[in-house]
């Protein structure tokens, strides 16, 4: 990518402590040492199953969680480590201006008692204290127009319950854009919507990238919608990146056995021809636990489920390594039979 970097995550790690008994606590390792680079105008897909850590990573990048280790730089500025309280609040606000988050569930992420226009107006007011009311109202209308909520004059007077899921999701995008962020993190923005309505939201994300030069991190478990709009893909498993690269390269020929599993789980109709999926139709492995393993065990994260694991995989954790086609993959075997 020739475009400049807008953000860079380095060795981002996020652990949660969970109470598992009266005195017992377990550490849940949601994200483990993830490096990520996002360029201007890039749509990056974070793909993985429930529990793979994709939402946690998104929230660390958005500054909603502080990272346990590692950090995220937005250009020059770093919000990684825990600063003092005062610093923290300014950094939180700084991160919010850089990165905005669109949530999965459009049915619960909008204030139900506010008209659409006021839920956007209030965000504008918060971030542009000096602008006058007229200017903010005009900008509210412009935002609604931008996300395709037309006719604007009618739409702005509605309450969330009067809108369909797709329309509410558009309001969420308008609210996020009101802050004028450089990066949008869209967390499963279409998974609650009908298949026939999804296309419109995906088109909207593409348009925001093309028209407004936004960079978007698209979090999803659905590799097919990711392919339609994204440039780059990061596949996450148990908090680690197992494969990343240009999306067409990875989707046309997945190399990590987990990426293969994800693609071979898709309904046959969506696959089409020309996709090379080794072992499609093979029985899925039994070990479905996404619980993180105790510290100190150094084997491949996918070892328990992997159909092609070798003895080395139980002893050593494969690091991401670059291949000639521009992707990186964390598997000892990947690429060996292809080169």
């Amino acid at each position, binding site marked *: 990518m020739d475009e400049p970097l807008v953000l860079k995550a380095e060795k981002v790690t996020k652990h949660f402590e969970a109470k598992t008994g009266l005195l017992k606590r377990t550490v849940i390792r949601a994200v483990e040492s993830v490096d990520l680079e996002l360029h201007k105008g890039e749509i990056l897909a974070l793909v993985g199953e*429930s529990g793979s850590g994709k939402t946690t990573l998104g929230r660390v990048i958005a500054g909603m969680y502080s990272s346990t280790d590692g950090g995220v730089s937005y250009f020059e500025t770093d919000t990684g480590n825990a600063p003092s309280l005062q610093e923290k609040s300014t950094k939180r606000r700084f991160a919010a201006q850089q990165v905005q988050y669109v949530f999965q569930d459009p049915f619960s992420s909008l204030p139900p008692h506010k008209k659409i226009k006021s839920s956007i107006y209030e965000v504008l007011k918060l971030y542009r204290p000096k602008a006058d009311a007229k200017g903010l109202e005009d900008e509210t209308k412009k935002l609604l127009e931008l996300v395709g909520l037309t006719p604007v004059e009618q739409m702005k007077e509605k309450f969330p319950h009067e809108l369909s899921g797709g329309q509410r999701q558009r309001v969420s995008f308008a609210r996020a854009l009101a802050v004028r962020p450089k990066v949008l993190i869209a967390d499963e923005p279409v998974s609650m919507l009908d*298949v026939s*309505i999804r296309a419109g939201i995906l088109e909207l994300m593409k348009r925001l990238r093309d028209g407004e030069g936004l960079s978007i991190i698209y979090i999803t478990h659905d*590799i097919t919608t990711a392919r339609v709009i994204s440039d780059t893909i990061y596949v996450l498993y148990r908090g680690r990146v197992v494969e990343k690269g240009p999306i067409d390269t990875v989707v046309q020929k997945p190399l990590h056995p987990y990426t293969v599993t*994800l*693609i071979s789980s*898709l309904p*046959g*109709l969506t696959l089409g021809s*020309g996709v090379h999926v080794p072992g499609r139709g093979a029985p899925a492995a039994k070990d479905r636990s996404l619980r993180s393993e105790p510290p100190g065990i150094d084997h491949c994260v996918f070892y328990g489920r992997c159909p092609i694991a070798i003895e080395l995989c139980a002893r050593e954790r494969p690091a991401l390594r670059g291949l000639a086609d521009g992707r990186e993959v964390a598997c000892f075997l990947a690429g060996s039979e292809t080169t």
Partner: protein
Amino acid sequence: MIPTLEVSPVDSLLVVSDLSVGYVTKNGLLRAVNEVSFKVSPGDVTGIVGESGSGKTSLANALLALLRPPAISKGRVSFGERNILSLNDDELRKLRWKELSYIPQGSMNSLNPVMRIKDQFSGILQTHLDQAERDRIRRVMEDSLSKVGLDAHNVLDAYPHELSGGMKQRVIIAMAISLGPKLIVADEPTTALDVVTQKDIMTMLAELKKQMGLTLILISHDISILAEICNYLLVMYAGRVVERGRSEDILNSPKHPYTSGLVASIPRLTGEKRVAGIPGEPPDLVTLPTGCAFHPRCKYRMTACVSQVPSSVSVGDEREVACLLYR
């Protein structure tokens, strides 16, 4: 393999004729299902597909006589000799789970959070098994759980929050099959699950269908998932069946413009990077558009579509479509 009985196609398990469901609202009558008729033969897997608000769930509720006021229904749902809509509560209780099971939408969240799995599961069995069979309860639970690929020893003593979404869905399916029903109706059985679990559940349903000779009705908004295991599809729009036929026929050459839209909105891994979608929004069921309810969103709209409700016409073997383009 147990040889299956030869069943002639006229011996339908379920016959739905002119079924309508409405809800009395303060704005008027909301017509959720409009004069729907179809038949299900033993061993069929019938898919009902449509967007939110097309009446799929109301239809399922009517099939199982689960509607309560302000809902009103009209028509006939024949299950064997009986009309389900005219059974009393006692007769219905005997029918449900034992002959007819329902897996409602979001059913994995319908498990009681403060009861262990074994306590809620055995409740169903206690209602339906005779005194003499009660000692079988534990075994029936273990058998059903192992059929859905769960380890009964771990699951029976667990509370719902200790299980993953996929496991909870499997528990519900185990309950649904435990008494060997003739028909199972599943409403969006995989919607909240991620792709890998979704595939597992669908594969499992197909496997159970083969093993137990189940007849299934599956409801979803995602035609690509239904295409995996259904042999028949009914496409619903605004409470009406707009197209029906064998799934491969419908997917290979959709006739109704709405069906074409649904098929085109499936994102694919190869080919052009475009998802088509269907412009506009599903209609308000209280103030339905005149004529064909799809006309405001249809790119083939003709003048007649605005005034005339299209009736179903046959367009091939076991294939019907309700669209004026095919008069």
